[in-house]
């Protein structure tokens, strides 16, 4: 996986959680323990999908103390580029795969006297790992989890058993809604808030917490953009002296990797900033899909995040 060391694993189980979600279990291929990790961490799963190598990040949901069994839950996205479809349709028990070491862009603040958590849909997964960590250290937290309906509210039954009154579940089809304003205006001093879910939910929590005077440093969110599919285009890489084709279901980063160019990355979701690349020439439109660049950087046309963003036009030259 790029120049970084990765882990050889075996798929030890594939479990159907509901009509959209499957859970995948991994153990180390040589039987030795997997690395411990911290709640909120993700792994990048490498998928050999025909001629294409996909690398897609998924949050670890298993207990960070469990070094025998990594678990991720993946929601099938029929409109996506194919990562989740590959996992759902092609990955079976016993398969050998490669994953990256866990990396955490959604870490708990260990100083917080209280953790207030908001999960939407599949956004529940990083919280599952964090909750194990907090239970072990007697942390103070409450989790508000909203899902479309009971069937899609994955793990809500297990969470009720585990958390009791610390869990609040809301179902859209029963007209249940999280009262963000009431919750954000009634927390003890020093509380940290965490949100993972659909983009509008994240935006809402960021906006309402600011309105209620929360310091930015106390508001945490996991904002993985999905690299969207789009029309194929050509990119020139000046440093590597290469001209590459980016396919419809491929990201620029994946196309660079396929061409043997060692480009930096961490989240592969437009959030961490590691793959930021200078644009040397651009005759056309950059289609920014990331959460990293500032508005003025986008306006300048000098920067792009190749893990999620695309291009439409006649010529694009990158400093890579």
């Amino acid at each position, binding site marked *: 996986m790029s120049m970084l060391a990765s882990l050889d694993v075996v798929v030890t189980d594939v479990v159907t959680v509901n009509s959209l979600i499957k859970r995948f279990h991994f153990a180390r291929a040589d039987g030795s323990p997997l690395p411990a*990790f911290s709640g909120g961490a993700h792994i990048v799963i490498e998928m050999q999908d025909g001629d294409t190598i996909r690398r897609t990040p998924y949050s670890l949901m298993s207990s960070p103390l469990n070094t025998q069994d990594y678990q991720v839950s993946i929601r099938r996205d029929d409109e996506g580029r194919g990562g989740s479809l590959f996992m759902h349709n092609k990955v079976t028990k016993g398969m050998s795969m490669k994953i990256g*070491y866990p990396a955490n862009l959604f*870490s708990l603040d260990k*100083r917080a006297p209280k953790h207030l958590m908001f999960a939407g849909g599949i956004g529940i997964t990083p919280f599952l790992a964090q909750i194990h960590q907090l239970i072990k250290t007697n942390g103070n937290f409450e989790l508000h989890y909203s899902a479309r309906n009971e069937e899609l509210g994955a793990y809500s039954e297990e969470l009720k058993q585990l958390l009791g009154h610390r869990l609040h579940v809301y179902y859209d089809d029963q007209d249940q809604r999280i009262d963000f304003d009431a919750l954000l205006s009634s927390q003890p001093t020093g509380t940290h808030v965490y949100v993972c879910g659909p983009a509008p939910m994240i935006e809402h929590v960021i906006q309402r917490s600011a309105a209620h005077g929360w310091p*930015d440093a106390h508001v945490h969110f996991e904002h993985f953009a999905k690299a969207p599919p789009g029309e194929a285009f050509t990119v020139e890489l000046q440093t590597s002296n290469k001209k590459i084709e980016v396919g419809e279901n491929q990201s620029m980063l994946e196309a660079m990797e396929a061409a043997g160019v060692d480009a930096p990355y*961490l989240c592969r979701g437009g959030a961490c900033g590691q793959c930021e690349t200078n644009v040397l020439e651009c005759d056309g439109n950059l289609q920014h899909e990331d959460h990293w660049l500032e508005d003025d950087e986008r306006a300048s046309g000098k920067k792009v995040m190749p893990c999620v963003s695309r291009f439409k036009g006649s010529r694009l030259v990158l400093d890579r």
Partner: protein
Amino acid sequence: MATSAKDLPFREETFRDDFTFKNSPETVLRAPFPFDKDSYMYAVNMELHRDGRPGTAYEAPIDVDEHYVSEMKDRALVLDEDPLRYQSLPHMTLAGWDTLELLMTCKAETYPEWFSLTRDGDNWHWVNRPMGIDQHFVFGDESTLPYAPLEYITRQAQGDFCVLDERDGNLWMDAGMVTTQADWSLDFDIGMNFFEWHAPVPLAHEKGIFKRALKYLLSIQQGNPARRLNWTMTVNPRLDTSPENYHIWGPENTHITPENVADKLFLRIELQSFWRLPRSNALLFPIRCYFLSMRDLSTVPKWATRMHRVLQTLPPEIASYKGLDNYREIAINWLSQFDDGKPTSEGPHPD
């Protein structure tokens, strides 16, 4: 043939008072010489910390050499006088356990004749033969160790250790063991962020170095540690050149003469490595100090030549920041006898 550090006995020596510290010739050759060309300027000179070539300080991920036992005695003396050289803010205990695990597993794997670790669930058994330590304890239970986990294990590991919490896209110096430092203080820097504790460094801010270095550090992942080298110079092989003790070592900066420079003036190399810790998501930042006297350097012609040229061309701001002004000219004059004016070969390694 390269000699492994494992072939050398542990030296009995001091880093204060009578300064009996001495490198064996093998230890000189395995030093991580910091100059890869004939001049020096700040740079984000980081690379992956992978198993290096045998017979170098990069051979093992956590290097142990002939100075180990004596350095640990010196650390214990410093801590007796000033317990604040070790500090850990309350939220850093988990990172202390991560550090203990990393150092114990690395050492037991690399140096099985010296260290062993046996794990049965959370019941661990640690043996450190060079220091005569045999400890049963419960991982995660502080009451089963004589010190907090970070203090316990860094009393048994060469080099200083900073433990950096990651928050708000920044790194915070929230725990550490610092007794072999080049004139900085953990007690002063504790709780500061990356930009705060680097504020005194000249020129590097203008070059945008710290912004880029922070971005690199935040990207460091488990299983993929990184490293860089830093350097300064020290009069006498004194590990503890702390601001707290400046009254002791500061005046020695004027003691260098043409007669004593070869044996009294040392290139002080810091091998800094960076490790992502698993459970805490903190970064461990070990800073390991290696001393080479000017006479040690002269045994490697390429190194003496290069040291001469680096000192000649060093920007004055950097020389002053590193505290070299009192003896720089004396060192240049002594080293000039080894500089034949010819080009040196590429890279830092001896020819």
